[in-house]
């Protein structure tokens, strides 16, 4: 960067020194004419200093201008890049090897909007319902209505201009190819890539049916794919910000008196606590807009009195009975289990999903649920006769991949001891 602004410092500092010396002399009761002379001298020196300062300023400005030119020339020379661009041999490095047809077939499975890429196969609505209930309903609901925060897949028609649009396959997705491609490649969550082509056709047929887009005798295949009309196919425009927004917003902005008055119209809905152990807690903000000043160019309309320090609620006395403690623990455990519910079922009629069902898991031999295909690690633990105790469970759930190398369980782990204790209590409540 430029060092030229430093020119100013000696010039201005010199003026101050001369002025300082002049005033020091004046204090020594010199004769009036001497003072006059000195005053004239001060004016002269001061004028010289000002002129020198101006000159230095002009020089600094010129230097900055030249530096800018140099930077611009350099930028142009390097194509706008800081570094010289990497050489480009135009495809003559000879690196890598030819991809084999089998490899391309395995990875290149995307489907284009016109249906190119769809494989052989087919699926009907009723088969689709069965496959959907087994693979998708734990998150998306039996009728594709969505569970908790998981995506809703059906309905929401004509809500896109509402305050809270419901964007589903039916109401929003413009291409059927996207549905097939995404289900086939990326679903189910925790078991991506495991659905057969026929299962995928069937699931997609069921999702269309749940959106009233096909009849119950519909069979989806490569042949019927183009028969389906997507509700929102014409609902998209290609990015037009350049015309609608940039043209309007590329103007010299206002710097002064841009508004007469500014009022605070809304305060943060949530206050966010950031505890030392990580994460965050959102708390509703009780504060009101009326308590705050409005602003004009003269500043705030008033300065609110300091908010009284919040009175700390006295710590609740430990009078809770053991029973309510247990209830609270189970409730908490139920909440924590939501992290597991995408892949595991527990309770009446629980079946294996992506993970084994968990009824009676406490005390049972590891890797012993019938009909579930375990990882090698759990198969070995089963052979050794290891059982699930609260300690083993806590260790596993804290760091699944460390505890059991090669486990298929795609779960990062529970960080908090209280969560681990609660999930153990919750699981234990389903038999042991």
């Amino acid at each position, binding site marked *: 960067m430029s060092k030229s602004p430093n020119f100013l410092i000696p010039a201005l500092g010199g003026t101050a020194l001369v002025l300082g010396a002049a005033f020091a002399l004046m204090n020594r009761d010199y004769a009036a004419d001497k003072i006059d002379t000195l005053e004239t001298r001060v004016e002269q020196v001061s004028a010289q200093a000002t002129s020198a300062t101006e000159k230095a300023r002009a020089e600094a400005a010129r230097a900055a201008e030249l530096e800018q030119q140099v930077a611009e020339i350099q930028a142009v020379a390097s194509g706008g890049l800081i*570094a010289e661009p990497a050489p480009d041999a135009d495809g003559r490095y000879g690196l890598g090897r030819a991809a084999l047809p089998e490899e391309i077939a395995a990875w290149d499975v995307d489907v284009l909007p016109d249906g190119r890429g769809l494989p052989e196969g087919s699926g009907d609505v009723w088969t689709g319902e069965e496959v959907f209930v087994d693979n998708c309903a734990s998150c998306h609901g039996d009728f594709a209505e969505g569970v908790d925060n998981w995506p809703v897949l059906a309905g929401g028609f004509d809500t896109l*201009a509402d305050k809270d649009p419901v964007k589903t396959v039916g109401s*929003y997705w413009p291409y059927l190819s996207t549905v097939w491609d995404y289900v086939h490649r990326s679903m189910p969550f925790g078991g991506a890539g495991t659905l057969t082509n026929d299962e995928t056709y069937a699931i997609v047929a069921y999702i269309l049916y749940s959106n009233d887009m096909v009849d119950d005798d519909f069979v989806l295949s490569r042949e019927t794919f183009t028969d389906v009309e997507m509700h929102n196919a014409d609902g998209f425009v290609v990015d037009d910000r350049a015309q609608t927004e940039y043209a309007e917003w590329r103007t010299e902005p206002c710097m002064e008196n841009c*508004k007469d008055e500014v009022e605070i119209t809304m305060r*943060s809905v949530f206050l966010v606590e950031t505890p030392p152990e990580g994460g*965050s807690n*959102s708390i509703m903000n009780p504060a009101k807009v009326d308590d705050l000043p409005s602003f004009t160019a003269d500043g705030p309309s008033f*300065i609110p009195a300091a908010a009284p320090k919040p009175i700390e609620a006295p710590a609740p006395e430990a009078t809770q009975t053991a029973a309510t403690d247990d209830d609270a623990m189970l409730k908490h455990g139920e909440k924590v289990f939501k992290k597991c519910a995408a892949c595991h079922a527990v309770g009446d009629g629980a079946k294996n999903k992506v993970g084994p069902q968990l009824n009676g898991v406490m005390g049972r031999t590891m890797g012993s649920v019938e009909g579930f295909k375990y990882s090698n690690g759990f198969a070995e633990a089963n052979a050794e006769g290891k059982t699930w105790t609260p300690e083993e469970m806590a260790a596993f759930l804290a760091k699944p991949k460390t505890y059991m190398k090669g486990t298929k369980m795609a779960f990062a782990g529970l960080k908090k001891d209280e969560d681990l204790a609660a999930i153990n209590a919750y699981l234990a409540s389903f038999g042991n």
Partner: protein
Amino acid sequence: MDDMFKPSRRAFLRGSAAVAAGSVAGAASASGPDPLITELQDWASYTGVGVDETPYGMPISFESHVVRRNVEWLTASPISSINFTPIHALDGTITPQGCAFERHHSGAIELSKPDYRLMINGLVDQPLVFTYDDLMRFPRENHVYFCECAANTGMEWAGAQLNGVQFTHGMIHNMEYTGVPLRTLLKEAGADISSDKWVYVEGADASSNGRSIPMEKALDDVLVAFKANGEALRMEHGYPVRLVVPGWEGNMWVKWLRRIEVTDMAVESREETSKYTDVLEDGTARKWTWEMDAKSVITSPSPQMPITHGKGPLVVSGLAWSGHGKITRVDVSKDGGITWETARLGKQGDTKALTRFYLDMDWDGAPMLLQSRAMDDTGYVQPTKEQLREQRGENSVYHNNCIQTWYVNAEGIAENVEVS
């Protein structure tokens, strides 16, 4: 052991009394000698830890609060979720990898270099497979770029929601990437690089995140990157190889990049139709809104960074960036946009990278409505929330680059607010 800590604690108490007295007087004057200076401190007497105590160092314990944080209720599962960079506590422009935000659609995966394969196929003369070692033999470049999630500030469309710049603006990071230009790899496979072609890129994780990039961009500045800030990418940022798509929304920066396909049309994948499209007020939606418009925010003071020193010299600091190029100017307002003054910019010259700005001011202790407004070298001026809503309504979710307002009260506490 207890005795060891006594001097520091006394020092702290007396030290803070001195600070309080100083702020009342408006100038620094100690009420007595500071024991932190006059008394021998443990750290000045005993030895510290030796080398190799932590072969790969972590920040000192005093900084343990400077971490990524998520907002649990935003998503159904932490495996398909996002967290936020602690931008309130950082300065300069480079984001350390360990606290740079994460966004996964199916969790971060462990993919080793020996297991890594990158395929190029589609409209190419010769479909190719590269290993990690192959990539190391192509000429490479270094560039600093910001990566911003399209949903950054997305919660704020319907009004001030989350009280913290980490949460309103923390889906962003800025790193120096080392990688091979995508055009080099495309040419190596003899790709059809005519301008109506597309490059579809896809990740190796279970979500198989895939996006379509128009050929013009693919040939311009896109990098196939393997290093960030000088070291290997972190697992959560796509180790061993991710795509860097400068200035464009973070979702296109495909992590664990496994396949590059040249196509004759956009794939219209899930992430470029059902997600990452912007619903307008009339219910139609914009698609292919790839570029991140100019944006800025004051990181301090902010709700997580209150003013604790009272009146007097105050450093207002923030970040500005534009997906269109360089930041040329940032203005700051203390009265909610009535009056603006131009802030001092930190190091300039990087295109599509974060720029730091400062406004060094003398705070009189009166409440403020702090705002910042960025301009880029295309002349684009960061819009107000009102301007954005006029154009798009409130349901766009993505691409909210509005001017942010912090109300700072007389105690120096800042809050996320909206103004008329």
